[in-house]
């Protein structure tokens, strides 16, 4: 594992009217690492990754990708840069089939005039790619034409995570991938997260589960009331320290810049 940074964010702030949801936060994601983001409810974790990926406009802050200044102002920009995100509660559209969910926003059109002029889709190719992907990731969903809502929470999360493998060339960002999942589904999901690394991705993961931080992540950053309060290598902390940092009973003066 190198320490070459893939994604560097500096001075990210987000104000909602008078509310400061995020206050001058720095973030560094190194090549091939899994970075955990933890913090209380409302600490600004989701806001941070939304601001990073252009899902919401930043009030201030700059982003560097692969060492160069990057203009990431919309989800499309982020995807173009190779950053794939699974947002909290906003991963799949219930009403449409798994196939269309996976390719949503990046449907493959036919390689002829029909595709070029009218955007006629190449269903064959999309279906094939999905089957290959699911086979590679050992996701056991055969009925890929069923609507997303027909699947269990674990299966849905697996599908969402598979998108990061399919499209995330460089970075996968996951907002609470195991929230509301049962013990076994959580296990499955975290195994997938681990395998993202094997597929060459750097990962940012938000979680409330300290066990997952300690078992699956390389570094952890702690947000509190919209500010970055600490960044630690996972080897340096234990669960109690993390909880202390999160709740503020322990002062953590590390900055990630």
């Amino acid at each position: 594992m190198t320490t070459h940074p893939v994604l560097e964010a500096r001075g990210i702030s987000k104000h909602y009217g008078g509310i400061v949801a995020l206050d001058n936060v720095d973030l560094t994601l190194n090549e091939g690492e899994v970075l955990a983001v933890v913090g209380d409810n409302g600490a600004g974790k989701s806001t941070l990754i939304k601001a990073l990926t252009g899902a919401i406009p930043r009030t201030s802050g700059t982003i560097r990708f692969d060492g160069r200044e990057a203009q990431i102002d919309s989800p499309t920009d982020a995807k173009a840069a190779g950053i794939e995100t699974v947002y909290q509660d906003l991963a799949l559209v219930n009403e449409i089939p798994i196939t269309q969910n996976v390719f949503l926003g990046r449907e493959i059109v036919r390689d002829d005039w029909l595709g070029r002029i009218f955007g006629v889709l190449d269903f064959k190719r999309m279906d094939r790619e999905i089957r290959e992907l699911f086979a590679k990731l050992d996701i056991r969903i055969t009925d890929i034409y069923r609507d997303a809502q027909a699947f269990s929470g674990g299966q849905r999360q697996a599908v969402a995570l598979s998108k990061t493998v399919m499209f995330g060339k460089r970075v996968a960002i996951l907002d609470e991938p195991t929230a509301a999942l049962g013990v076994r589904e959580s296990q499955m999901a975290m195994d997938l997260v681990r395998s993202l690394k094997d597929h060459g991705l750097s990962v940012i993961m938000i979680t409330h589960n300290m066990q997952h931080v300690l078992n699956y992540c390389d570094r952890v950053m702690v947000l509190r009331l919209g500010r970055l309060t600490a960044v630690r290598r996972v080897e340096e902390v234990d669960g109690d320290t993390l909880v202390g940092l999160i709740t503020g009973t322990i002062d953590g003066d590390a900055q990630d810049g």
Partner: protein
Amino acid sequence: MADTRNSSTAVSNPGATSRSLDRLRHEFMQIWQVLAALALIYLVFFLLSPPFRSLDTLLSIFGQAAILAVLACGTTVVLISGGLDLSVGSIFAVVGVCVGILLAEMELPVWLAVLGGLGIGAALGALNGIVQVATGVPAFIVTLGGLTAYKGVAEILASGRDLSRFPDGFQALGSGYVVPMGIMFAAALLTGLFLTRTRLGIRAFAIGGNEEVARLAGVPVKRSRVCYYMLGGLLAALAAIMEVAKLNFAMPARGQSYELFAIAAVVIGGTSLFGGRGGVGKTLIGMLIMQTITVGLSYMGVGTSYQRIAIGIIIIAAVYWDVWRRSTR
């Protein structure tokens, strides 16, 4: 003809051919019950009323349904994408008057007048969409405003003008059964292919299902939404052109409440009012059901007022049937 929902009996053998077949079969499964209802209603009138039994009658049901069916195809797309356009009746009125002016006053060639009318309808539809995505005002309000404002525009444009006596070539667009039916099927087929086979089309389901998820997935939600409204306006314009051609004169008082009839047909067919689900094939059948009942009742000498009561009950009953069907399986 156009429905991306798949039933829950999933395929086990992958591969493209089986997928297409499977897809078709599922689409048919979705439609057959509505189709059966249509057949049943037709049969009832067939038995009750001797003059109803002619082929002409059957054709005239199609012919009469054609205009509203074309309009309703647009409504289907807009509803699937989670939108609502109350103003299509007024767009209908504006386009009717404009085409009248283009033909009777400016004496443009037919094809140019038709193109002009379609363009105006598409523009007004797009305007509804643009105002929504730019301001964030809900569709109900924007298109309620449009309903009122466009009506005023139609009246102002028509005021003091006598818009009638159009060229024969134009009249052909609305005359008889063949051409209107042809336009109806063509419009439904193209809209259906759009919804099921093109990128912009299938995205309507995603946007209607969950707009925020679609946006975060990189779908240009605003731009797409404007397109759906534009298509709705375009099809309303096509319907208006058909009606002006059929009646051979244009008036601003046309199209009133057509938006409600179109919505009724769409939901009778089984498309969701709340977005994400549906198809134009069903809409076509929904419109034919309404038309069969109207024609059948008037063949039996039932007055307009009683027809209204019947249609009102049918609308509720059709949706109830759909609700009930879903809840029991």
